[in-house]
């Protein structure tokens, strides 16, 4: 018998018993659905974390010199927290020291941030992130100015009370007017809005457009940082190699400046996009480790179900087997027929599973801010697993079928 013949036969049988076939492949279907959906979601999450989360919070080719990590995920023990608090803070002088001595070309911005309320003609916008920083901050953050302009180095040096605001703040606080030129109050001090930043979108559903940026030297700086103290010195270079070099240099400069002995650990912290992903990477590794287990369990269950269905099929179709044998089917023909039938059944389950998995991934994509990144390899793995499970589950029933005595089989009801 030709191999294709067995597939054709199997498809004919499966088509004749659609509902039964569907139920028998549910296990495999669930397993592969799992595989595809989890891989898609984790990969989508991964991309989201890299592209949005890390790059939004820190940015590509950028590091922040800080007293302590600002992005922490998971538990921080009391002793670690205490050690962090004891560290000296980053001062203006630290920033200027590093800036003056760093040989790697880089862009710098002093940075301070806190949440404030912004007032305009009796209206108030709460929970606005107010950043005090340098003129280069806009370049470091890739902020595009849609109206007005960013502030200049000169305005920083002369501590001008000017403000560049996020698009959502502009819409909420200054609707239906041109925000540029309007004066708003922060902490009782007047600031002139000189520019609006293009919409940044959301992160985990939170708006990234509720912010305002002012020169770090402006009067209101005491609202966000003590005088002479910074949350961070932000440093950006052209590419990952120079960034690493700049970071190494900064580390050496800071250790020298603070007089740290070789055995003493750093009493400052570098925040990078990479570092911010640390915890997420741990989570996704766990998911990927757990995934084979989850998939394996449903595939084993699916395989057992298919084996039982095939055993039932063999006993139901004993007479058919007898007829085939009488007409010249050899053992291996019957074996092939049932193994292929089982593999086809299971393979169909895998294909349906891929469909369901993709569907699930796209539902997640539609109802959450997470993208779904479908991994082609996961589909190949899904089909391969499905077919393998089918073959494995089919061998025993098929062997039984192939060993039937044709005389006995022909007499079966």
């Amino acid at each position, binding site marked *: *018998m*030709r191999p294709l*013949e067995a597939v054709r036969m199997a498809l*004919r*049988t499966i088509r*004749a018993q659609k509902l039964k076939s569907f139920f028998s492949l549910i296990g495999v279907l669930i397993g592969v659905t799992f595989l595809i959906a989890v891989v898609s979601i984790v990969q989508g999450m991964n991309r989201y974390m890299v592209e949005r989360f890390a790059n939004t919070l820190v940015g590509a080719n950028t590091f922040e010199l800080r007293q302590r990590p600002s992005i922490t995920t998971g538990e921080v023990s009391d002793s670690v927290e205490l050690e962090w608090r004891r560290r000296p803070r980053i001062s203006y002088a630290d920033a200027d020291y590093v800036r003056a001595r760093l040989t790697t070309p880089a862009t710098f911005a002093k940075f301070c941030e806190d949440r404030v309320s912004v007032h305009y003609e009796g209206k108030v916008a709460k929970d606005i992130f107010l950043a005090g920083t340098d003129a280069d901050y806009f370049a470091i953050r890739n902020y595009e100015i849609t109206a007005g302009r960013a502030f200049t180095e000169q305005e920083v040096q002369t501590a001008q009370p000017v403000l560049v605001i996020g698009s959502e703040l502009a819409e909420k606080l200054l609707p239906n007017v041109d925000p540029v030129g309007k004066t708003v109050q922060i902490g009782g001090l007047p600031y002139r809005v000189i520019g609006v930043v293009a919409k940044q979108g959301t992160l985990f559903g939170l708006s990234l457009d509720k912010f305002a940026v002012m020169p770090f030297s402006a009067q209101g700086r005491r609202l966000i940082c003590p005088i002479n103290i910074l949350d961070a010195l932000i440093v950006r270079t052209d590419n990952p190699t120079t960034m690493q070099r700049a970071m190494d240099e900064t580390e050496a400069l800071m250790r020298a400046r603070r007089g740290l002995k070789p055995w003493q650990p750093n009493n400052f912290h570098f925040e990078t996009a990479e570092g911010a992903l640390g915890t997420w990477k741990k989570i996704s590794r766990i998911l990927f480790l757990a995934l084979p287990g989850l998939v394996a369990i449903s595939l084993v269950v699916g395989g057992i179900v298919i084996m039982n269905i095939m055993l039932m099929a063999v006993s139901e179709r004993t*007479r*058919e087997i*007898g*007829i*085939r*044998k*009488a*007409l*010249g*089917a*050899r*053992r*291996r*023909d019957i074996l092939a027929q049932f193994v292929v039938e089982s593999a086809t059944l299971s393979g169909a389950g895998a294909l349906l599973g891929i469909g369901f998995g993709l569907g699930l991934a796209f539902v997640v994509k539609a109802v959450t801010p997470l993208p779904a990144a479908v991994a082609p390899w996961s589909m190949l793995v899904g089909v391969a697993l499905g077919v393998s499970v089918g073959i494995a589950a089919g061998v025993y029933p098929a062997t039984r079928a192939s060993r039937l005595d*044709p*005389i006995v089989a*022909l007499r079966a009801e």
Partner: protein
Amino acid sequence: MSTIIRILDLAREYRMGDERIYALRGVTLDIRRNEYVAIMGPSGSGKSTMMNLLGCLDTPTAGEYWLNGEEVSRLSDDALARVRNREIGFVFQTFNLLPRATALQNVELPLVYAGVRARDRRDRAVAALERVGLGHRLEHRPNELSGGQRQRVAIARALVNQPSILLADEPTGNLDSVTSEEIMRVFADLHAAGQTVIMVTHESDIAAHAERAVVLRDGRVESDRLTRGAAA
């Protein structure tokens, strides 16, 4: 005329627990090419065992069976399958068609196991169905056909590989008398065209269509004679 079947002292015994049952106790028989033989006998006479042995569905415990020049009584399962595929066309009392397959697909089945290519298969299956007068029922399934038509499909299936012998087991057992006559006419036509036909039956009026009747009793040949039909 040449001998197509030669059976020498063929015996088949079964064990049931400690007991031994002798279904055939040494049968010697020659059947020539283009003979039309009825094998008869009451139940328990060994005619079913004879049918299974002749059809290579079973192997004897003693004796020799030469089919078309080949000793087939000691062959392996797969070798027997090949012999069944090439040398024997079965027609059963209960038709034994695959219920979900069309007439054409049923008739193609022996060719599938013979490894014939799909296009050749179809041509040959159509020719076989036309030969039994069912050229217009190719795509019908067994449950859409009458009993007589089903048996014709089975005959077409038996013939499609041009076997040495057509082996029919009570071919009219499930048919009314009019349809039975019809099937007997098909057998007569095939025989007239040169086909060797062996028919196992317990009905003497059906056996009368054959030219030779072998009667078994208690696992032995009781009589072997020409029928009235052959004399006429």
